[in-house]
């Protein structure tokens, strides 16, 4: 008994002095833990190698998410409807139809003759325009020829495009000339155009 006790008391000093624990020591201070739950047993076992499994698991999760995203992306994007091509329903209403007028014979004749005269007028106008443009182009060609005879350097300078010319803005002719010091009245507007995103 005494021996046992002495051995019991002697062992803890031994254990504390010892560094590494190789075998399963079921004596000394661990004796108490043997009766209770083996909470400290894993502490002494070889540490688990978690390095490979966790990254693999995370990678698997990421791959699954990417596959789901790809499946979603494979769906073609919804086409944006062109609102000009669909006639709104309210214009198909029958109450909106104007009564078709019955034109007398003279009126329809007058219209046909006027249209023909107009086409003749427009034709002469077009021919005159084309001729004028042709003359202008010819004049420019002659100018470039003469310039080339003069000096090659000036000719090359003339052929270079002008980067400052575009964008070129000019207010076209209106019906009445602009008033000097005219202040246009201020107005508000609400923009209700529908904006679609794909």
């Amino acid at each position, binding site marked *: 008994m005494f021996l046992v006790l002495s051995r019991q008391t002697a062992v803890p000093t031994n254990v504390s002095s010892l560094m590494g624990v190789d075998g399963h020591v079921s004596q000394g201070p661990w004796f108490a833990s043997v009766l209770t739950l083996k909470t400290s047993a894993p502490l002494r076992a070889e540490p688990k190698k978690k390095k490979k499994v966790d990254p693999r698991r995370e990678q698997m999760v990421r791959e699954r998410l990417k596959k789901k995203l790809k499946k979603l992306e494979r769906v073609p994007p919804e086409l944006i409807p062109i609102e000009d091509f669909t006639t709104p329903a309210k214009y198909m209403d029958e109450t*909106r139809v*104007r009564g078709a007028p019955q034109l007398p014979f003279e009126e329809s004749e007058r219209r046909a003759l006027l249209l023909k005269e107009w086409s003749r007028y427009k034709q002469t106008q077009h021919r005159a325009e084309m001729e004028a443009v042709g003359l202008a182009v010819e004049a*420019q060609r002659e*100018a*470039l020829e003469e310039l080339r005879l003069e*000096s090659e350097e000036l000719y090359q300078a*003339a052929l270079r*495009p002008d980067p400052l*010319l575009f964008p070129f803005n000019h207010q076209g002719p209106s019906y*009445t000339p602009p008033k000097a010091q005219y202040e246009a009245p201020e107005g508000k507007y609400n923009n209700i155009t529908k904006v679609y995103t794909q």
Partner: protein
Amino acid sequence: MAAPCSRMANRPLWQFITNVRRTGLKHTGVRQISLSSACRAATQTRSKTEGVPSPWKLYGAVCLQRLPVISQERNPIEDQFAELMHQMELERSLLSDHEQRLLEDSERMTRKQADNYDSDEEEADYGGQETITAQDQEDTWEQKLKHFQPALRDRDVGGTPLGSVERCLGDSLVLLVQQTVGKETIWLLPQAQWEAGETLRQTAERGLSSLPEADFKATFLGNTPCGVYRYKFPKEVRTERCVGAKVFFFKAFLSAGSASQKEPFLWVKKTELQGYLKPPYLEKVDRFILNL
């Protein structure tokens, strides 16, 4: 063309010289002289095409156009056609919202004036609101329009001077200046003599900016000249170096500018150019001034 001729002339001459030296014949001397003079002429023409400056003086001129500010008056046929188009479009169209409102309002008025008018039924439909009829709206719009006074279209009935930019708002006008060329002062497009080291477009810009008492802001359309006028000086002035002059024209649009009325400026339409420019000059200039 001059270069190969001179080369061909050189070789036989050299051979001739050596032959003459060998043989010592006299009659070949005559031929030698004539050949040498031909050779000299050939070399002269060759040097002219390479190094000597051309005998034409260069000028850069600007064709400054003021584009039309108002639309032109319609021809009778254009008037008729516009009316016809308007009529046809009206016939082929559907009723607009505004027109439908007008019809509904007029129907409601007739119903109100009828004998069996049930005001409770009407007000139940429309919620008893004070509705503004479409006709009332039209009247208010017309009143607003009458308050606005637009500027008059035909301002030159009073006769604006030829030098003013405001004349003939419906047509495009070209700027003419009076300059001394040689001995006489004539009307022409503003020009300046070309100096070495600048492009012709810069010459034209200089010609425009150097006009006394006038600041015109113009946008030049590109670096290419639109026309050329070549003329020879009168025989007294003509020398070997300058036979004549070439005037290169550049197009520009007037963006902003003003000029005092004292200086001799003219803004003319294409049809009026004949009264101011000399015939050969006008012939060349008329081509690139478009009335479109």
